[in-house]
């Protein structure tokens, strides 16, 4: 059980101009389930490998359990890791795979056998103990890798895209199982994935990285509702958030934002940001569920006429892609909405959660 602290950690690789990880500050609380998410090449795996000790930070400090780990060999860090392709020892049976670490640590024979039996039972792999990894399915290998990590009784768990080689159904099942195991053994866990769904469903807190830099560290809800920039907003959520070019202008009554064919008076929290601004180019963001067929109930809300391009009925809801002039937007409508391609619709934008970003930097303004 340990707290993990990264201070100003930077990793430069030879021959690369930009840092793989740049000035990363991070604290993972004892027992926390932290998910590091981001597109490929964002530095998330490098971060994990620095925690494990396979990479040495070019700068900065890695602390685990209050101890600086920069100079500690991976074998002495007392961590467990689950690899993307499981990294089971191919020449050993499942049982030997599970026993390997305990033998290294000179655990008495009797307790090795007992612990393996317990963990195998919990993970439902008791019948597989005599088999070799090549004879197991993806899900079974996953369980063995998990079992091996659990038997390590580590200070912290590191998981590197552990579900990415599984099919969709199994992935959903393993997500639940991993959470269950974490509830049972609340060990500090750092979980790396490129899948935002895994990040949102499993994390206590999420770290979103891009280009080697931390973009935002927040709970899943905060990440969704309060993204710090346009990148975070568009990475989280499916279908993606709609981003339109817009412009904030002042008219007599106060700041007003115009986007698509609509215009909307900024008030409340939004308004304050733009009081002093005369004209500003912004990016306006609406999540697909914030765009609906116009009801006219609230005449304040901006309404736009659009042409339906594509209807994707998902059963419980319908995703509709519609065109407004040059721009395309996606909205989440109720099931059986009765639309078909070519229809002209009036769409109403719910501004309660409207997000405004600086066009150039992407930073959220309000």
């Amino acid at each position, binding site marked *: 059980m340990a707290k993990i602290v990264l201070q100003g950690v930077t990793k430069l690789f030879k021959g690369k101009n930009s840092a793989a990880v740049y000035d990363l500050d991070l604290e993972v609380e004892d027992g926390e389930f932290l998910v590091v998410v981001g597109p490929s090449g964002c530095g998330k795996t490098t971060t994990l490998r620095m925690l494990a000790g*396979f990479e040495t930070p070019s700068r900065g400090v890695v602390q685990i359990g209050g101890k600086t780990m920069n100079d500690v060999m991976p074998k002495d860090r007392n961590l467990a890791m689950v690899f993307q392709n499981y990294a089971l020892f191919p*020449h050993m049976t499942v049982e030997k795979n599970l026993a390997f*670490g305990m033998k290294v640590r000179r655990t008495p024979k009797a307790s090795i056998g007992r612990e393996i039996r317990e963990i195998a039972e919990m993970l439902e792999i008791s019948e597989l103990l005599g088999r070799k990894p090549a004879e197991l399915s993806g899900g079974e290998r996953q369980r063995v890798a998990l079992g091996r990590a659990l038997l390590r009784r580590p200070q912290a768990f590191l998981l590197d895209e552990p579900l990415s080689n599984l099919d969709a159904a199994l992935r959903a099942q393993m997500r639940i199982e991993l959470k269950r195991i974490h509830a049972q053994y609340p060990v500090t866990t750092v979980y790396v994935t490129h899948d935002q769904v895994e990040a949102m469903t499993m994390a206590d807190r999420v770290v979103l990285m891009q280009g080697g830099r931390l973009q935002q560290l927040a709970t899943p809800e905060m990440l969704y509702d309060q993204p710090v920039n346009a990148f975070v907003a568009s990475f989280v959520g499916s279908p993606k958030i709609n981003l339109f070019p817009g412009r904030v202008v002042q008219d007599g009554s106060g700041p007003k934002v115009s986007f698509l064919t609509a215009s909307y008076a900024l008030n409340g929290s939004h308004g304050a940001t733009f009081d002093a601004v005369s004209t500003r180019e912004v990016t306006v963001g609406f999540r697909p569920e914030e765009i609906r067929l116009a009801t006219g109930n609230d005449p304040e809300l901006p309404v736009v006429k659009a042409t339906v391009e594509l209807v994707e009925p998902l059963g419980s809801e319908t995703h509709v892609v519609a065109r407004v002039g040059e721009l395309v937007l996606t909205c989440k409508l109720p099931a059986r909405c009765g639309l078909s391609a070519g229809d002209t619709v009036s769409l109403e934008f719910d501004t309660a959660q409207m997000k405004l970003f600086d066009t150039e930097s992407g930073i959220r303004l309000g």
Partner: protein
Amino acid sequence: MTALGGSSDVGLDRPQRRADKERFKFTTFVWLSPAGILLIALFLVPTAYAIYLGFTNLQLLGPHASSFSFTGLANLDRMVHDSVFWSSVKLTLVFVIGSGIIAQTLLGMALALLGQRAHISIRATVGSIVILAWVLPEIAVAFIWYAFGQSGGMLSEIIGKPSDDLLSTVPLLIVCVANAWRGTAFSMLILSAGLRNVPEEVDEAAQLEGAGYWRRLFRITLPIMRPTIMTNMILITIGTISDFTLIYAMTQGGPGNETAILPVYMYIEAFQFNALGYGTAIALSLIVIGGLLSIFYIRQLKPELGKAS
């Protein structure tokens, strides 16, 4: 399609000709024949002929040069009682196992393991040097080590006894060193490639389990490389057991018969003592020994053979 269409050209009594199953074409013979003729004429016929000649009294010159005859097990009988033959078998085994299997595999493995962790420029330089020794024609290698083993040669100077003629005092050791020097590159190349195929994460997983370098090497890396190591050993054995040029050019099998491994002994018997028939019999014994060695490796390195895979 047939079930749906029920068209009349699908006769029920006629076996259908499937388009997806490739049929034998006459040209296949034509395409295989150049290689086939070459192998039959210059490989299979001589091999079959060798099996026959091994049981004859054929001579290079003299009465049995043209009118040789089948002599049954006479050659085998001579072989069993030929002390030079048995010492030659022993020398062959020492040469193959000592210089081939042990020295080349160990050196090749050491170079592969060091190369994996060394700086790329050092790895590339050392790798090129080792490979250069292997690319050199065997006769050039023989000459170099012939010079090195002389009195006043580099080796005797290095051990501090410049007047020693190592080629007469420890001839077998010198030819073994020469062969190891020449052949290590092959093992290095094969084993490096095998090492690259060991997944890095597996080694990393073992690190996190707390295993140190040597334990990982012996418990994880080498066992995973077992098939490659075995292939390498068999290939080295095949290459070393029939080696002639190196030893013959360095020592002609001497002094005495101290370095006369089987191919050299065969050559001496056949072309210096005229006994082509007996020489062939010696060559046949090479196959037996090579086969036994290969079986031995497979047994040693695949204990799981026979268990359900």
